[in-house]
Protein backbone atom coordinates (compact mmCIF):
# COMPACT_ATOMS: atom_id res chain seq x y z
CA UNK A 1 0.00 0.00 0.00
CA UNK A 2 2.76 2.37 0.97
CA UNK A 3 4.62 1.55 -2.20
CA UNK A 4 1.51 2.24 -4.17
CA UNK A 5 1.07 5.67 -2.59
CA UNK A 6 4.74 6.43 -3.20
CA UNK A 7 4.22 5.43 -6.81
CA UNK A 8 1.22 7.74 -7.12
CA UNK A 9 3.13 10.69 -5.68
CA UNK A 10 6.11 10.04 -7.89
CA UNK A 11 4.05 9.81 -11.03
CA UNK A 12 1.42 12.36 -10.03
CA UNK A 13 2.28 14.76 -12.87
CA UNK A 14 1.73 12.02 -15.42
CA UNK A 15 -1.56 11.06 -13.81
CA UNK A 16 -2.65 14.70 -13.94
CA UNK A 17 -1.67 14.88 -17.63
CA UNK A 18 -3.57 11.70 -18.45
CA UNK A 19 -6.61 12.98 -16.57
CA UNK A 20 -6.64 16.26 -18.53
CA UNK A 21 -6.13 14.40 -21.82
CA UNK A 22 -9.07 12.16 -21.03
CA UNK A 23 -11.18 15.23 -20.29
CA UNK A 24 -10.22 16.76 -23.65
CA UNK A 25 -10.84 13.55 -25.56
CA UNK A 26 -14.20 13.29 -23.84
CA UNK A 27 -14.95 16.77 -25.20
CA UNK A 28 -13.79 15.74 -28.67
CA UNK A 29 -16.11 12.78 -28.84
CA UNK A 30 -19.17 14.25 -27.19
CA UNK A 31 -19.22 17.94 -28.11
CA UNK A 32 -17.99 17.99 -31.64
CA UNK A 33 -20.65 16.26 -33.56
CA UNK A 34 -24.12 16.87 -32.32
CA UNK A 35 -24.07 18.29 -28.84
CA UNK A 36 -25.26 21.86 -29.15
CA UNK A 37 -23.35 23.50 -26.37
CA UNK A 38 -23.38 27.26 -26.58
CA UNK A 39 -20.74 27.80 -23.91
CA UNK A 40 -17.95 25.95 -25.65
CA UNK A 41 -18.41 27.46 -29.11
CA UNK A 42 -17.91 30.87 -30.67
CA UNK A 43 -21.65 31.52 -30.28
CA UNK A 44 -21.09 32.54 -26.70
CA UNK A 45 -21.05 36.15 -25.65
CA UNK A 46 -17.37 36.67 -24.89
CA UNK A 47 -15.85 35.05 -27.96
CA UNK A 48 -18.58 36.58 -30.11
CA UNK A 49 -17.78 40.11 -28.98
CA UNK A 50 -14.06 39.62 -29.59
CA UNK A 51 -14.68 38.32 -33.08
CA UNK A 52 -17.06 41.17 -33.75
CA UNK A 53 -14.29 43.61 -32.92
CA UNK A 54 -11.69 41.89 -35.08
CA UNK A 55 -14.23 41.70 -37.88
CA UNK A 56 -14.78 45.43 -37.78
CA UNK A 57 -11.13 45.86 -38.65
CA UNK A 58 -11.21 43.15 -41.26
CA UNK A 59 -14.28 44.52 -42.98
CA UNK A 60 -12.33 47.63 -44.00
CA UNK A 61 -10.09 45.43 -46.10
CA UNK A 62 -13.03 43.98 -48.01
CA UNK A 63 -14.94 47.24 -48.17
CA UNK A 64 -14.27 48.06 -51.78
CA UNK A 65 -15.39 44.72 -53.13
CA UNK A 66 -18.47 44.61 -50.89
CA UNK A 67 -19.35 48.11 -51.94
CA UNK A 68 -19.27 47.08 -55.56
CA UNK A 69 -21.44 44.05 -54.84
CA UNK A 70 -23.98 46.20 -53.02
CA UNK A 71 -24.09 48.61 -55.94
CA UNK A 72 -24.68 45.75 -58.35
CA UNK A 73 -27.38 44.37 -56.11
CA UNK A 74 -28.93 47.81 -55.89
CA UNK A 75 -28.94 48.16 -59.64
CA UNK A 76 -30.53 44.78 -60.08
CA UNK A 77 -33.29 45.58 -57.60
CA UNK A 78 -33.81 48.93 -59.24
CA UNK A 79 -34.32 47.21 -62.57
CA UNK A 80 -36.76 44.85 -60.99
CA UNK A 81 -38.76 47.73 -59.53
CA UNK A 82 -38.91 49.35 -62.94
CA UNK A 83 -40.04 46.15 -64.60
CA UNK A 84 -42.73 45.59 -62.01
CA UNK A 85 -43.82 49.20 -62.32
CA UNK A 86 -44.33 48.80 -66.03
CA UNK A 87 -46.28 45.59 -65.48
CA UNK A 88 -48.41 47.42 -62.95
CA UNK A 89 -49.09 50.23 -65.36
CA UNK A 90 -50.15 47.62 -67.87
CA UNK A 91 -52.67 46.30 -65.36
CA UNK A 92 -53.93 49.74 -64.50
CA UNK A 93 -54.66 50.66 -68.06
CA UNK A 94 -56.39 47.35 -68.62
CA UNK A 95 -60.12 47.77 -68.61
CA UNK A 96 -60.68 44.63 -66.54
CA UNK A 97 -60.45 45.12 -62.76
CA UNK A 98 -57.79 42.72 -61.51
CA UNK A 99 -58.27 43.17 -57.77
CA UNK A 100 -60.42 40.07 -57.40
CA UNK A 101 -57.75 37.79 -58.70
CA UNK A 102 -55.38 38.67 -55.86
CA UNK A 103 -57.88 39.09 -53.07
CA UNK A 104 -57.28 35.67 -51.51
CA UNK A 105 -53.59 35.62 -52.09
CA UNK A 106 -52.75 38.84 -50.36
CA UNK A 107 -54.52 37.69 -47.21
CA UNK A 108 -51.86 35.06 -46.74
CA UNK A 109 -48.49 36.40 -45.58
CA UNK A 110 -45.42 35.43 -47.61
CA UNK A 111 -43.84 32.14 -46.55
CA UNK A 112 -40.27 33.40 -46.33
CA UNK A 113 -38.74 36.52 -44.93
CA UNK A 114 -35.09 37.43 -44.49
CA UNK A 115 -32.91 38.56 -41.62
CA UNK A 116 -29.74 40.33 -42.79
CA UNK A 117 -26.61 39.35 -40.84
CA UNK A 118 -22.87 39.92 -40.90
CA UNK A 119 -20.22 37.22 -40.65
CA UNK A 120 -18.13 38.01 -37.57
CA UNK A 121 -15.89 34.98 -37.67
CA UNK A 122 -15.13 32.17 -40.03
CA UNK A 123 -12.94 29.13 -39.98
CA UNK A 124 -12.49 27.81 -43.48
CA UNK A 125 -8.95 26.50 -43.40
CA UNK A 126 -9.52 22.93 -42.36
CA UNK A 127 -12.16 20.28 -41.97
CA UNK A 128 -14.27 21.76 -39.21
CA UNK A 129 -15.43 24.76 -41.16
CA UNK A 130 -18.02 27.08 -39.67
CA UNK A 131 -19.16 30.70 -39.70
CA UNK A 132 -20.33 32.88 -36.82
CA UNK A 133 -23.05 35.48 -37.50
CA UNK A 134 -23.95 38.54 -35.43
CA UNK A 135 -27.66 37.70 -35.14
CA UNK A 136 -29.12 35.41 -32.48
CA UNK A 137 -32.24 34.34 -30.64
CA UNK A 138 -33.21 37.94 -29.87
CA UNK A 139 -33.30 38.71 -33.60
CA UNK A 140 -35.53 35.71 -34.28
CA UNK A 141 -32.86 33.30 -35.44
CA UNK A 142 -33.39 29.62 -34.63
CA UNK A 143 -31.34 26.55 -35.43
CA UNK A 144 -32.03 24.80 -38.76
CA UNK A 145 -32.69 28.04 -40.62
CA UNK A 146 -31.07 28.39 -44.03
CA UNK A 147 -28.43 31.03 -44.79
CA UNK A 148 -27.81 32.53 -48.25
CA UNK A 149 -25.51 35.14 -49.74
CA UNK A 150 -26.11 37.36 -52.74
CA UNK A 151 -24.72 34.73 -55.05
CA UNK A 152 -25.88 31.41 -53.61
CA UNK A 153 -26.58 29.30 -50.57
CA UNK A 154 -24.17 29.45 -47.64
CA UNK A 155 -25.26 26.95 -45.00
CA UNK A 156 -27.57 26.11 -42.13
CA UNK A 157 -27.81 27.64 -38.64
CA UNK A 158 -26.49 25.05 -36.20
CA UNK A 159 -26.27 26.71 -32.85
CA UNK A 160 -27.79 29.94 -31.49
CA UNK A 161 -27.15 32.13 -28.46
CA UNK A 162 -28.88 35.40 -27.59
CA UNK A 163 -26.75 37.56 -29.89
CA UNK A 164 -24.80 35.20 -32.12
CA UNK A 165 -25.30 32.10 -34.19
CA UNK A 166 -23.01 29.47 -35.69
CA UNK A 167 -23.51 28.28 -39.26
CA UNK A 168 -22.48 24.93 -40.69
CA UNK A 169 -21.51 26.05 -44.21
CA UNK A 170 -21.75 24.06 -47.44
CA UNK A 171 -18.00 23.48 -47.13
CA UNK A 172 -18.30 21.23 -44.07
CA UNK A 173 -18.53 17.44 -44.42
CA UNK A 174 -21.56 17.45 -42.11
CA UNK A 175 -23.57 19.57 -44.52
CA UNK A 176 -25.86 17.87 -47.03
CA UNK A 177 -28.60 19.32 -49.16
CA UNK A 178 -30.92 17.92 -51.78
CA UNK A 179 -30.08 19.50 -55.15
CA UNK A 180 -30.77 19.19 -58.84
CA UNK A 181 -29.61 20.61 -62.12
CA UNK A 182 -31.88 23.39 -63.31
CA UNK A 183 -34.30 22.23 -66.01
CA UNK A 184 -33.96 18.65 -64.88
CA UNK A 185 -36.28 16.77 -62.56
CA UNK A 186 -33.72 14.39 -61.03
CA UNK A 187 -32.62 15.24 -57.51
CA UNK A 188 -29.27 14.29 -56.06
CA UNK A 189 -27.46 14.93 -52.83
CA UNK A 190 -24.90 17.71 -52.59
CA UNK A 191 -22.04 17.53 -50.10
CA UNK A 192 -18.49 18.69 -49.63
CA UNK A 193 -15.54 16.51 -48.78
CA UNK A 194 -12.70 18.94 -49.44
CA UNK A 195 -10.01 19.90 -49.72
CA UNK A 196 -10.73 22.67 -52.26
CA UNK A 197 -12.91 25.36 -50.80
CA UNK A 198 -14.95 26.09 -53.89
CA UNK A 199 -15.64 22.58 -55.20
CA UNK A 200 -18.48 20.41 -53.87
CA UNK A 201 -19.90 17.14 -55.18
CA UNK A 202 -23.40 16.45 -56.42
CA UNK A 203 -23.94 12.74 -55.90
CA UNK A 204 -26.57 10.09 -56.48
CA UNK A 205 -27.80 11.47 -59.76
CA UNK A 206 -29.35 8.90 -62.09
CA UNK A 207 -26.94 7.38 -64.61
CA UNK A 208 -28.77 8.90 -67.58
CA UNK A 209 -28.40 12.47 -66.33
CA UNK A 210 -26.27 14.18 -69.02
CA UNK A 211 -23.29 16.33 -68.05
CA UNK A 212 -22.96 19.79 -69.52
CA UNK A 213 -20.28 22.10 -68.21
CA UNK A 214 -21.62 25.29 -66.63
CA UNK A 215 -25.11 24.04 -65.80
CA UNK A 216 -26.70 25.76 -62.84
CA UNK A 217 -27.29 23.61 -59.76
CA UNK A 218 -30.25 24.62 -57.58
CA UNK A 219 -31.90 23.36 -54.40
CA UNK A 220 -34.73 20.87 -54.84
CA UNK A 221 -36.90 19.45 -52.09
CA UNK A 222 -35.45 20.81 -48.90
CA UNK A 223 -37.12 21.65 -45.66
CA UNK A 224 -34.59 24.40 -45.00
CA UNK A 225 -34.19 26.22 -48.31
CA UNK A 226 -36.85 27.45 -50.72
CA UNK A 227 -36.86 25.73 -54.09
CA UNK A 228 -34.60 26.83 -56.96
CA UNK A 229 -31.96 28.72 -55.01
CA UNK A 230 -28.61 28.75 -56.80
CA UNK A 231 -25.93 26.53 -55.22
CA UNK A 232 -23.28 26.52 -57.93
CA UNK A 233 -22.30 25.48 -61.43
CA UNK A 234 -21.17 22.13 -62.80
CA UNK A 235 -17.49 21.89 -63.75
CA UNK A 236 -16.63 18.23 -64.33
CA UNK A 237 -17.69 14.63 -63.85
CA UNK A 238 -16.51 13.28 -60.50
CA UNK A 239 -15.51 9.76 -59.65
CA UNK A 240 -18.63 8.04 -58.40
CA UNK A 241 -18.59 5.78 -55.37
CA UNK A 242 -21.33 3.66 -56.86
CA UNK A 243 -21.62 2.54 -60.48
CA UNK A 244 -25.35 3.01 -60.51
CA UNK A 245 -25.16 6.75 -59.99
CA UNK A 246 -23.47 9.75 -61.52
CA UNK A 247 -21.49 12.34 -59.59
CA UNK A 248 -20.61 15.85 -60.72
CA UNK A 249 -18.13 18.36 -59.36
CA UNK A 250 -19.82 21.66 -58.58
CA UNK A 251 -18.18 25.05 -58.33
CA UNK A 252 -19.94 26.81 -55.46
CA UNK A 253 -21.55 30.15 -56.21
CA UNK A 254 -20.76 31.63 -52.78
CA UNK A 255 -17.19 32.79 -52.27
CA UNK A 256 -16.38 31.71 -48.73
CA UNK A 257 -13.09 33.60 -48.65
CA UNK A 258 -14.67 37.02 -48.93
CA UNK A 259 -18.10 36.32 -47.48
CA UNK A 260 -19.31 39.20 -45.29
CA UNK A 261 -23.02 39.85 -45.62
CA UNK A 262 -25.58 37.08 -45.58
CA UNK A 263 -29.35 36.61 -45.24
CA UNK A 264 -30.97 34.19 -42.84
CA UNK A 265 -34.16 32.67 -44.25
CA UNK A 266 -37.06 32.53 -41.86
CA UNK A 267 -39.72 30.06 -42.95
CA UNK A 268 -43.08 30.93 -41.46
CA UNK A 269 -44.42 27.42 -41.98
CA UNK A 270 -41.34 25.47 -40.90
CA UNK A 271 -42.84 24.14 -37.68
CA UNK A 272 -46.15 23.44 -39.31
CA UNK A 273 -44.55 21.39 -42.07
CA UNK A 274 -42.34 19.50 -39.67
CA UNK A 275 -45.22 18.66 -37.38
CA UNK A 276 -47.20 17.34 -40.28
CA UNK A 277 -44.31 15.25 -41.57
CA UNK A 278 -43.48 13.86 -38.16
CA UNK A 279 -47.06 12.77 -37.63
CA UNK A 280 -46.48 10.26 -40.43
CA UNK A 281 -43.28 8.75 -39.16
CA UNK A 282 -44.34 8.38 -35.54
CA UNK A 283 -46.87 5.59 -35.12
Amino acid sequence: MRNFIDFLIKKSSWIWAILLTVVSLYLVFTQNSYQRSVYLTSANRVTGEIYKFSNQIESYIHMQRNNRQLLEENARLHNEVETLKSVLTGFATDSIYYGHAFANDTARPPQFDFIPATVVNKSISGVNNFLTLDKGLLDGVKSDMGVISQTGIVGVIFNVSDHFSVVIPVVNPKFRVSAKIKNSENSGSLGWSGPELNIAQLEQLPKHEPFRSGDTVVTSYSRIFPKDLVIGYTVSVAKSKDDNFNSFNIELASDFHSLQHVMIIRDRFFDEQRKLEESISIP
Partner: protein
Amino acid sequence: MKVSMIFEIVLFVVLIAFQTTIFSRISVFGVATPILYVYFLIKLPIGRNVFYVITSGFLMGLIIDIFLNTPGMNAAATTIIAALRKPLLNVFFSRDDYEEFVPSIYSSTKSFVRFVIIITIMHQTLLFFIEAFTFFNLSYTIVRIFASSALTLVTIFALDGLMYRKSSGIQA
Protein backbone atom coordinates in the same frame (compact mmCIF):
# COMPACT_ATOMS: atom_id res chain seq x y z
CA MET B 1 10.65 36.35 -11.11
CA LYS B 2 7.65 38.68 -11.02
CA VAL B 3 8.58 40.30 -14.33
CA SER B 4 8.93 36.93 -16.04
CA MET B 5 5.49 35.98 -14.70
CA ILE B 6 3.95 39.04 -16.32
CA PHE B 7 5.80 38.21 -19.51
CA GLU B 8 4.27 34.72 -19.48
CA ILE B 9 0.73 35.99 -18.97
CA VAL B 10 1.11 38.53 -21.77
CA LEU B 11 2.53 35.84 -24.06
CA PHE B 12 -0.37 33.52 -23.17
CA VAL B 13 -3.02 36.12 -24.02
CA VAL B 14 -1.29 37.50 -27.11
CA LEU B 15 -0.69 34.03 -28.60
CA ILE B 16 -4.34 33.06 -28.12
CA ALA B 17 -5.54 36.32 -29.64
CA PHE B 18 -3.27 36.03 -32.69
CA GLN B 19 -3.91 32.32 -33.15
CA THR B 20 -7.68 32.66 -33.17
CA THR B 21 -8.04 35.87 -35.14
CA ILE B 22 -5.19 35.61 -37.63
CA PHE B 23 -3.14 32.42 -37.81
CA SER B 24 -6.01 29.92 -37.87
CA ARG B 25 -7.51 31.73 -40.84
CA ILE B 26 -4.36 31.37 -42.91
CA SER B 27 -4.34 28.40 -45.22
CA VAL B 28 -1.51 28.41 -47.72
CA PHE B 29 -2.42 26.24 -50.73
CA GLY B 30 -5.20 24.76 -48.61
CA VAL B 31 -2.71 22.72 -46.58
CA ALA B 32 -0.43 24.88 -44.44
CA THR B 33 -1.82 26.61 -41.36
CA PRO B 34 0.59 28.10 -38.80
CA ILE B 35 -0.25 26.75 -35.34
CA LEU B 36 1.85 28.99 -33.23
CA TYR B 37 0.45 28.87 -29.72
CA VAL B 38 2.72 25.95 -28.79
CA TYR B 39 5.43 28.63 -28.61
CA PHE B 40 4.15 29.35 -25.10
CA LEU B 41 5.28 25.92 -23.89
CA ILE B 42 8.65 26.43 -25.55
CA LYS B 43 9.22 29.77 -23.81
CA LEU B 44 8.55 28.61 -20.23
CA PRO B 45 11.66 28.44 -18.01
CA ILE B 46 13.27 25.00 -17.98
CA GLY B 47 12.79 24.38 -14.28
CA ARG B 48 9.12 25.32 -14.20
CA ASN B 49 6.83 23.03 -12.16
CA VAL B 50 5.42 20.22 -14.31
CA PHE B 51 1.88 20.69 -12.97
CA TYR B 52 1.99 24.33 -13.92
CA VAL B 53 3.13 23.46 -17.46
CA ILE B 54 0.51 20.76 -17.98
CA THR B 55 -2.35 22.84 -16.59
CA SER B 56 -1.46 25.95 -18.58
CA GLY B 57 -1.09 23.83 -21.73
CA PHE B 58 -4.53 22.35 -21.17
CA LEU B 59 -6.09 25.76 -20.52
CA MET B 60 -4.47 27.25 -23.59
CA GLY B 61 -5.74 24.42 -25.79
CA LEU B 62 -9.21 24.66 -24.29
CA ILE B 63 -9.50 28.42 -24.83
CA ILE B 64 -8.38 28.03 -28.43
CA ASP B 65 -10.90 25.23 -28.87
CA ILE B 66 -13.69 27.45 -27.62
CA PHE B 67 -12.78 30.10 -30.17
CA LEU B 68 -12.38 27.66 -33.04
CA ASN B 69 -15.43 25.50 -32.25
CA THR B 70 -13.37 22.33 -31.96
CA PRO B 71 -13.98 21.29 -28.33
CA GLY B 72 -11.15 19.16 -26.98
CA MET B 73 -8.92 18.83 -30.04
CA ASN B 74 -6.30 21.48 -29.28
CA ALA B 75 -6.65 20.81 -25.55
CA ALA B 76 -5.82 17.11 -25.95
CA ALA B 77 -2.84 17.69 -28.23
CA THR B 78 -1.40 20.48 -26.10
CA THR B 79 -1.81 18.60 -22.81
CA ILE B 80 0.11 15.63 -24.19
CA ILE B 81 2.86 17.92 -25.49
CA ALA B 82 3.03 19.72 -22.14
CA ALA B 83 3.50 16.40 -20.37
CA LEU B 84 6.25 15.33 -22.77
CA ARG B 85 8.07 18.68 -22.50
CA LYS B 86 10.15 17.75 -19.46
CA PRO B 87 11.57 14.47 -20.87
CA LEU B 88 12.31 16.27 -24.16
CA LEU B 89 14.10 19.10 -22.36
CA ASN B 90 16.25 16.54 -20.56
CA VAL B 91 17.29 15.13 -23.94
CA PHE B 92 18.28 18.44 -25.54
CA PHE B 93 19.51 20.62 -22.68
CA SER B 94 22.05 19.74 -20.04
CA ARG B 95 20.76 19.30 -16.50
CA ASP B 96 23.08 21.86 -15.00
CA ASP B 97 21.36 24.65 -16.92
CA TYR B 98 20.09 27.36 -14.63
CA GLU B 99 16.49 26.75 -13.40
CA GLU B 100 15.11 30.01 -14.70
CA PHE B 101 16.85 29.55 -18.05
CA VAL B 102 14.51 30.23 -20.97
CA PRO B 103 15.38 28.43 -24.21
CA SER B 104 15.95 30.84 -27.06
CA ILE B 105 17.48 30.89 -30.49
CA TYR B 106 20.48 33.04 -29.52
CA SER B 107 21.48 31.40 -26.25
CA SER B 108 21.61 27.76 -27.36
CA THR B 109 20.91 27.67 -31.06
CA LYS B 110 21.54 24.00 -31.82
CA SER B 111 19.54 22.40 -29.01
CA PHE B 112 16.84 25.06 -29.27
CA VAL B 113 16.26 24.37 -32.98
CA ARG B 114 16.11 20.61 -32.45
CA PHE B 115 13.82 20.96 -29.47
CA VAL B 116 11.41 23.26 -31.34
CA ILE B 117 11.35 21.03 -34.43
CA ILE B 118 10.51 17.92 -32.41
CA ILE B 119 7.89 19.60 -30.26
CA THR B 120 6.17 21.30 -33.23
CA ILE B 121 6.00 18.21 -35.41
CA MET B 122 4.68 16.12 -32.50
CA HIS B 123 2.06 18.72 -31.66
CA GLN B 124 0.81 19.02 -35.23
CA THR B 125 0.81 15.28 -35.78
CA LEU B 126 -1.39 14.81 -32.72
CA LEU B 127 -3.62 17.71 -33.67
CA PHE B 128 -4.25 16.73 -37.27
CA PHE B 129 -4.80 13.07 -36.44
CA ILE B 130 -7.33 13.95 -33.77
CA GLU B 131 -9.02 16.27 -36.24
CA ALA B 132 -8.92 13.78 -39.11
CA PHE B 133 -10.30 10.93 -37.03
CA THR B 134 -13.23 10.29 -39.28
CA PHE B 135 -12.76 12.46 -42.33
CA PHE B 136 -10.30 12.45 -45.17
CA ASN B 137 -7.51 10.26 -46.34
CA LEU B 138 -4.13 9.62 -44.81
CA SER B 139 -2.01 11.22 -47.52
CA TYR B 140 -3.84 14.54 -47.26
CA THR B 141 -3.43 14.53 -43.47
CA ILE B 142 0.30 13.82 -43.75
CA VAL B 143 0.78 16.59 -46.31
CA ARG B 144 -1.05 18.96 -43.97
CA ILE B 145 1.13 17.95 -41.01
CA PHE B 146 4.38 18.60 -42.83
CA ALA B 147 3.27 21.75 -44.63
CA SER B 148 1.85 23.25 -41.43
CA SER B 149 4.87 22.22 -39.36
CA ALA B 150 7.22 23.86 -41.84
CA LEU B 151 5.25 27.09 -41.84
CA THR B 152 4.93 27.07 -38.04
CA LEU B 153 8.65 26.47 -37.57
CA VAL B 154 9.62 29.31 -39.85
CA THR B 155 7.24 31.61 -37.98
CA ILE B 156 8.46 30.49 -34.54
CA PHE B 157 12.12 31.03 -35.42
CA ALA B 158 11.38 34.43 -36.90
CA LEU B 159 9.32 35.40 -33.85
CA ASP B 160 11.98 34.18 -31.45
CA GLY B 161 14.64 36.11 -33.31
CA LEU B 162 12.60 39.29 -32.89
CA MET B 163 11.45 38.66 -29.32
CA TYR B 164 14.86 38.06 -27.80
CA ARG B 165 16.24 41.42 -28.79
CA LYS B 166 13.20 43.37 -27.75
CA SER B 167 12.83 41.75 -24.36
CA SER B 168 16.38 40.70 -23.59
CA GLY B 169 16.35 42.71 -20.39
CA ILE B 170 13.30 40.87 -19.10
CA GLN B 171 14.31 37.36 -19.88
CA ALA B 172 17.98 37.31 -18.98
